[in-house]
């Protein structure tokens, strides 16, 4: 019954869209007087051309997977969680408190405990907007935006006044104990005698992120809770008819969402900086929105979109570091990719559909 084969919709459309985005980006690069081919080469080799580049690409992707999943889960319940930024920041606080104040002898023990801390703090930060939405009808978009600002203020206060070691200029917590440092993938590779991605921040959290994608898929499409979340997202009267409590599901969905956003802290706070710094989230919460929407609210899509953004982030970083192209170019490229694959996708899809339809007609005839 479909207008075109599924593979075309899933692969061809986004592919052409990305190509279009890059074509326009090339024009922008030309316009600012730089060489697009050289820029592309720098980006690709910088992000994907070596295990070193991959190490960074995957590190960023890990962040985006978590925030993307966060947005995605809420979106299935028809809740637009713009608060990933604040929730991830609070997740970082959770990680820092756990690692600084609990005696955790080994990373294998520290990891699950820190994960609980991260998820709990992220979820707690999502809880109030969720509860207000469910009980009082306060629009979750506003409250989550507000909670981003409030989280920033809280973190600013805690880091400057409570967690900062005396005499340190840096508004950051002390370093976490050595025992709690997560193994980098470099270290794992080394145990197998391989050299892979020396000095890159990607760490075991990446595997947790991949696992999270799979678990989220199970959650949304294979569990009762996921079913109920999706029902509520499609129709509130339907949920009531089926005996699903909108309050309960709204709160649960946001707790899971906030938990995922919080879990990002495992990667950037515990895995990379190994201490809590101000603005550790660096906008990953907002990129999560783009990742989830572009990933069509499917964990596999989120994974791919996160990789794409990881690539853009690292490739763009390389571009900014080693060429005279300003780092803002990469934001423009990101914007174009989001625009073409996410919002202008019909521009590509419609002619494709027509093409496949006429091909089928000819086949029938």
């Amino acid at each position, binding site marked *: 019954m479909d207008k075109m084969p599924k593979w075309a919709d899933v692969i061809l459309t986004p592919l052409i869209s990305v190509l279009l985005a890059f074509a326009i980006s090339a024009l*922008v690069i030309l*316009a*600012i*007087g730089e060489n697009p081919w050289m820029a592309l080469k720098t980006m690709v080799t910088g992000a994907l051309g070596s295990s070193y580049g991959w190490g960074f690409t995957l590190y960023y992707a890990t962040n985006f997977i978590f925030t993307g999943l966060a947005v995605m889960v809420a979106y299935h319940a028809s809740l*637009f969680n*713009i608060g990933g930024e604040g929730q991830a920041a609070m997740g970082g606080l959770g990680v820092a408190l756990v690692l600084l104040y609990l005696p955790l002898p080994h990373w294998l023990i520290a990891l699950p405990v820190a994960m609980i801390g991260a998820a709990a703090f992220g979820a707690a930060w999502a809880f*109030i907007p969720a509860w*207000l939405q469910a009980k*009082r*009808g*306060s*629009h979750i*978009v*506003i*409250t989550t*935006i*507000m*909670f981003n*600002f*409030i989280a*920033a*203020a*809280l973190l*600013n*206060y805690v880091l*400057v*006044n409570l967690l900062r070691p005396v005499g340190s200029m840096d508004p950051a917590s002390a370093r976490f104990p050595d025992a709690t440092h997560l193994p980098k993938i470099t270290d794992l590779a080394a145990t197998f005698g391989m050299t892979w991605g020396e000095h890159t921040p990607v760490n075991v959290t990446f595997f947790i992120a991949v696992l999270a994608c799979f678990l989220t898929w199970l959650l949304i499409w294979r569990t009762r809770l996921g079913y109920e979340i999706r029902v509520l997202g499609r129709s509130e009267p339907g949920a009531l008819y089926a005996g699903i409590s909108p309050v309960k599901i709204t709160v649960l969905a946001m707790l899971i969402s906030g938990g995922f956003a919080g879990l990002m802290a495992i990667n950037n706070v515990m895995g990379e900086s190994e201490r809590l710094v101000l603005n550790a989230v660096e906008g990953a919460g*907002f990129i999560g*929105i*783009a990742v989830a*929407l*572009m990933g069509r609210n499917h964990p596999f899509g989120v994974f791919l979109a996160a990789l794409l953004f990881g690539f853009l982030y690292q490739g763009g970083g390389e571009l900014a570091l080693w060429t005279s192209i*300003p780092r*803002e*170019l*990469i*934001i*423009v*490229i*990101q*914007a*174009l990719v*989001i*625009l073409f694959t*996410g*919002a*202008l*996708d*019909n*521009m590509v899809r*419609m002619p494709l559909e027509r093409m496949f339809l006429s091909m089928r007609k000819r086949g029938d005839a």
Partner: protein
Amino acid sequence: MVDSGRAVQGIDSALRLMTPLLLACLAGLYSERSGVFDIGLEGKMLMAAFSAATVAYLTGSAWIGLLAGIAGSMALSLIHGLASITFRGNQLISGVAINFLASGLTVLLGIKIFQLGGRTPSLEGAARFQPIELPLAETLRGVPVIGDLYSNLLSGHSILVYIALLLVPLTWWVLNRTRFGLRLRAVGENPASVDTAGVSVTRLRHAAIAICGVLCGIAGAYLATSLSAGFVKEMTAGRGFIALAALIFAKWRPWSALFATFLFGLLEAIANQYPNLDLGFITIPSMFMNALPYILTVIILAGFVGRAIPPRAGGEPYVKER
């Protein structure tokens, strides 16, 4: 503790701070009442701020700058319209993309033009909108109360502030008293009703989005050529999102938008005046005073504002044939 002079100054400051919010909020109102969600207000304002400042600097005229600001914002509106109306794409994604685009392009172009790291040089004289004195402001200044209110508070703002304030009744009138307004509201509630009445849904929505572009353009120009004297990267600093919050807060109505944005402006002005609120037993640190407007917004929202029901067709592209 709160003397009247300080109160006047607070409200005066609130007026200035609310103006970009109000303009952006009304911009969003037109767009969203027509059924097109717009989280790209921030980006459009930023783009407008940049183009207004750039052109004002190059021409030395704030008015030409304003036009350029409107043009810059309109260009992004056009993209939003193309994506979410013509090609029926996802309006939220398009908005996110526009925010990114503006954030990157402004700095990129700024560097290309001025080599100042994305800043524009400072604007002076006619390149900025200067405060204007309302008639009789000087004469009335001595008169108690009225003088305070009229001469100190109402008078002495840039022309754009008055434009923004006048846009509130104008918007109300357009929405409720004109053919365009009727159709605009209808297309946001049930586009099929407009379509079957023989009116083009697409054209109406494009028109609404264009108005949104104009208003965001004024908002951005106000930021860069009136409130401050030039463009600094990311200078909108989240005001587009606050305007969005105000829009929801105002339940998509113009007079309530005035109230909501004034409230936000006032809260910020108060936080500015009392950076460290000393309650006697405890001093609230600056971080929390800075976050006060946001905290109070949540409290007000939870306590006094009921469910906000968006325009029914909002966020959904109008598709006749699936």
